């Protein structure tokens, strides 16, 4: 029934586009890869964190004396140990709120704002003692009423998380009334009201989505050693060692050069390990105890104390004329920020209508505080929620107009030169090519038959990021090259970056030896996130390779005693342009140490030109009418990768994103009790899909080369989670003749809609 994964390729390269074995593969499959939990240091202490059992409470007093008296306890810290405790509003001025929120999410000072909020931490000789000590810490809480729903939090009279700290900032204006609405923003293009007046059909609906977790298999962990000379060494599981360095230095009020962060292997992040929770706490414990300290989270702590993606409420209205053209569109989004401001509502707003050529559009969004963990990035943050609403409304417009959903999308698709509602103009993009690949796909051309079955289609957008990256490349005498990078490898980026280096140098992939190193050992490199790593760090590798090539040319010219302009580098061979002189890369490498020394190429860059990504997903489902259970029968995901450097890892990203999106659509949610307690903080009851819940996810890689990258690369990691929520909802809607507007679409909710 399924078709093989396809690559619709435009350009062929020697190394790029091939599927070599990943450099970290052997260590990972043999269990030798070093994760944070594996780290052992002399005199290492083990720490655990005490967390608030209440979703909302004032912390009146913390008594740690009994815990301190327990044998084997070496240090206890609370918010009183953070620099914030010693700073006044006057000291911090306009930075007060930002710095308070940063500090308080590591260790709460005056209020616990969500169940799982860190209150204190204990370092002890072993983890069991640390756990026992937590039970001996007395915290005097004044329990307050929590608010865990975005709409309730926006009502007058809702419990306020930050009392008088937050005043809604809207379009440059700041209100004088305390509120849970941290900010409001709005973009407009054309005349939305007039566009609706010119439409023949209008669909308007409200949607909600639940808080969902990234669900990475490796819990957060951190080890820190605050040495006697003031140097703080940190080992952790992070998507961005330089972010950990910057924020650890910030919250501890030390210089960035005092902090060295070593990223260990990472067991998944999906955006959630851009944020971090433990490192400064481990550092404070280490300073107090005078020894290195390791702190680990349990799965429950990960759910309750680390960032989920925001729950949301949306109202979507779209109009189209009888010719099948969208005349106007409007979306209002309210996203849960969690305990502190900063939901991705802006990204949600700017992605919402990105697939559609709009003359008239309005997007607006609210960033709303609720008593949940501060939301963290999760794969295309904000875009899946917005697409869940928009793509269902588009589906309904197609139903009302009686037009094919792919044709309708093609008829309204953005292309190069289209302007988004909030302003930016698209460069060369591949939405039309993805939609055409969908239309031509055997899946789409095969009618879906049988009762209780439905087919859904949805498209999705993510802008992708550039940002800073650095690479150093050193030529070894055996002709291999050490490639030193700062990008943590989550999805095979060691391979895809090494491939770009090998392609540029014209040498074999196996001769590139990539290594991810600490923040003292490589230039500034932003997070592995934003679908930027293969694009930007790959580009840094290309530039560093070009640097190596230039130096190899100079060296050959010097050996031959000819002008360097007469020497060229071509496909791994340095040769004289007119004389019979040449060195292969390996031949020249062997001579470097005796002809002037080793060669190191370096590059640091902050590239623009990241190409935007689009995806189109097709899904067939069958819904059991008696139980409401949805079975995914078939799934095809189509995506523009620009150029797939390592197609297997692009397919892996597409399949992974689709699977996470299916989980989000069908079962995943934070289930809260009335008093704001998460009731399902385990993988048993937080129901992510298993392999038995899914068919093979077929993929089609479309390659519309990104003109903003030397090899045409576009980021691929995030956009595949955007379409599945709506694609599944559309499919279930067609199978049941019921439009389901609230996520997750559980068997229970399908059943409730029928009973």
């Amino acid at each position, binding site marked *: 029934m399924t078709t093989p994964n396809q690559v619709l390729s435009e350009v062929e390269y020697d190394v790029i586009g091939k599927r070599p074995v990943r450099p970290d593969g052997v260590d990972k499959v043999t269990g030798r890869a070093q994760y944070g939990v594996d780290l052992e240091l002399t005199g290492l202490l083990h720490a655990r964190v005490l967390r608030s059992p209440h979703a909302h409470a004032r912390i009146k007093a913390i008594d740690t004396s009994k815990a301190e008296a327990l044998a084997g306890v070496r240090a206890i810290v609370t918010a009183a140990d953070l620099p914030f405790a010693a700073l006044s509003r006057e000291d911090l001025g306009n930075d007060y709120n930002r710095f308070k929120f940063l500090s308080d999410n590591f260790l709460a000072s005056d209020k616990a704002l969500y169940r799982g909020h860190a209150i204190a931490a204990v370092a002890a000789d072993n983890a069991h003692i640390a756990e026992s000590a937590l039970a001996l810490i007395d915290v005097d809480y004044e329990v307050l009423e929590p608010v865990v729903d975005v709409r309730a939090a926006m009502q007058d009279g809702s419990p306020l998380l930050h009392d008088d700290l937050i005043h809604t900032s809207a379009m440059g204006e700041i209100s004088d009334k305390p509120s849970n609405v941290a900010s409001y923003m709005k973009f407009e293009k054309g005349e939305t009201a007039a566009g609706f007046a010119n439409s023949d059909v209008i669909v308007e609906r409200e949607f909600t989505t639940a808080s969902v977790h990234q669900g990475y298999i490796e819990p957060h962990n951190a080890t820190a050693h605050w040495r006697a000379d003031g140097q703080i060494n940190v080992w952790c599981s992070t998507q961005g060692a330089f972010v950990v360095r910057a924020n650890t230095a910030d919250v501890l009020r030390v210089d960035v050069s005092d902090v060295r962060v070593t990223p260990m292997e990472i067991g998944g992040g999906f955006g959630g390990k851009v944020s971090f929770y433990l490192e400064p706490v481990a550092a404070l414990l280490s300073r107090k105890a005078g020894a290195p300290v390791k702190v680990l989270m349990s799965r429950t702590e990960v759910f309750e104390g680390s960032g989920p993606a925001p729950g949301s409420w949306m109202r979507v209205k779209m109009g189209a004329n009888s010719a099948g053209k969208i005349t106007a569109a409007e979306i209002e989004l309210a996203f849960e920020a969690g305990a502190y401001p900063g939901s991705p509502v802006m990204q949600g707003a700017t992605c919402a209508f990105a697939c559609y050529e709009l003359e008239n559009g309005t997007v607006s969004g609210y960033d709303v505080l609720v008593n949940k963990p501060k939301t963290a990035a999760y794969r295309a943050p904000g875009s899946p929620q917005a697409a869940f609403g928009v793509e269902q409304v588009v589906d309904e417009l197609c139903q009302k107009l009686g037009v094919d959903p792919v044709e309708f999308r093609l008829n309204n698709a953005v292309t190069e030169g289209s302007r988004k509602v909030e302003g930016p103009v698209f460069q060369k993009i591949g939405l039309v090519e993805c939609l055409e690949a969908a239309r031509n796909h055997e899946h789409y051309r095969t009618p879906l038959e049988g009762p209780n079955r439905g087919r859904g289609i949805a498209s999705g957008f993510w802008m992708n990021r550039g940002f800073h990256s650095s690479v150093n490349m050193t030529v070894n005498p055996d002709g291999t090259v050490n490639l030193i990078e700062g990008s943590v490898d989550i999805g095979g980026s060691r391979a895809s970056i090494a491939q770009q280096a090998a392609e540029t140098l014209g040498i074999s992939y196996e001769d590139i030896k990539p290594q991810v190193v600490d923040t003292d050992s490589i230039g500034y490199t932003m997070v592995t996130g934003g679908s930027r790593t293969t694009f930007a760090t790959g580009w840094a590798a290309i530039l560093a390779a070009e640097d190596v090539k230039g130096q190899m040319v100079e060296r050959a010219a010097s050996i031959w005693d000819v002008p360097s302009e007469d020497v060229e580098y071509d496909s791994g061979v340095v040769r004289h342009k007119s004389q019979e002189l040449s060195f292969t890369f390996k031949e020249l490498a062997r001579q470097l140490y005796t002809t002037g020394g080793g060669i190191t190429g370096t590059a640091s860059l902050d590239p623009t030109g990241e190409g935007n990504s689009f995806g189109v997903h097709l899904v067939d489902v069958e819904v059991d009418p008696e*139980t*409401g259970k949805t079975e995914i029968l078939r799934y095809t995901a189509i995506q523009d990768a620009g150029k797939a450097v390592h197609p297997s890892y692009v397919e892996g990203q597409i399949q992974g994103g689709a699977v996470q999106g299916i989980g989000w659509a069908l079962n995943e949610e934070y289930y809260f009790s009335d008093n704001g307690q998460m009731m399902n903080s385990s993988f*048993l009851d937080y129901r992510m899909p298993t392999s038995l819940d899914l068919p093979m996810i077929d993929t089609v890689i479309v390659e519309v080369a990104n003109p903003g990258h030397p090899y045409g690369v576009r980021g691929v990691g995030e956009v595949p989670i955007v379409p599945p929520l709506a694609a599944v909802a559309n499919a279930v809607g067609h199978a049941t003749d019921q439009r389901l507007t609230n996520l997750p679409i559980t068997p229970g909710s399908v*059943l409730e809609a029928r009973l």
Partner: protein
Amino acid sequence: MRAIDYVAPTSLSEAVSVLSANGDRARPLAGGTDIIVQLRGGRRELDVLVDAKTIPELNQIEMTDSGLRLGAAVPCYEIYQNQQVAAAYPGLIDAAGLIGSIQIQGRASIGGNLCNAAPSGDSIPPVITLGGEAHINGPNGWRAVAAENFCTGPGRSVLEPGEILVGIQIPAPVANSGTAYLRFIPRNEMDIAVAGVSSSVVLDASGQTIQSARIALASVGPTPILATAAGDSLAGKAASDDAIAEAGRLASEAATPITDMRGTIRQRHHLVDVLTRRTLNIAIRRARGEE
């Protein structure tokens, strides 16, 4: 987690004496798929774990003329890999093959499932509908308890301090009988039943009339429930859709579910009806030798 003692007795009497000496601070350990999770999660505190896997009587699986003697610590995989047992008790195999996951089934036992006494215990309804009996040994000797009376509340059973479940006795299947178990979970594995139902029927020689039936429910009350009225309603009736629908309705009435993160009261009542009808149909087909 505190340090605790682990004892591996080689005889039933040794196990009973250790359990008796420690009262409610000791528990037998079979597969450990529940108790170790509970200990690690701080949901249970103990001083002693008594390994049931080293006691011969608890690890035997034996088919005789009078039925199946199933040692309390026999793991699920040994049950469904036993051809004789699998042929005689497909309803039991339905449950043994879906508890947890393949890995869990390598350790978890049906005796442990009973002793854990979770309302959602998947193997308990088929043991009930098959007429299973729990054989218990303790400081006062042997006693037997019908499976439907074994659980007394969530996580609670008839076992007194010092007592240990040695085995489960299931009668030999009579002619023209069939049993089935189905549960509803939102995923396809690694999940806890939102509702579970086992049905067993005995048909007459023609295979058209139901002589007797038993229906038992999981996850819809504080303990697994024997839905007596639902089962009895079928006695003497033709194996028809109408009779099955009535049994489904009565089974649904026998459920006393709660609303929690896994499902709502309304959903669970509805699912009991659906699963009762589905399991009755499977049981009838099995009784007729059709599957």
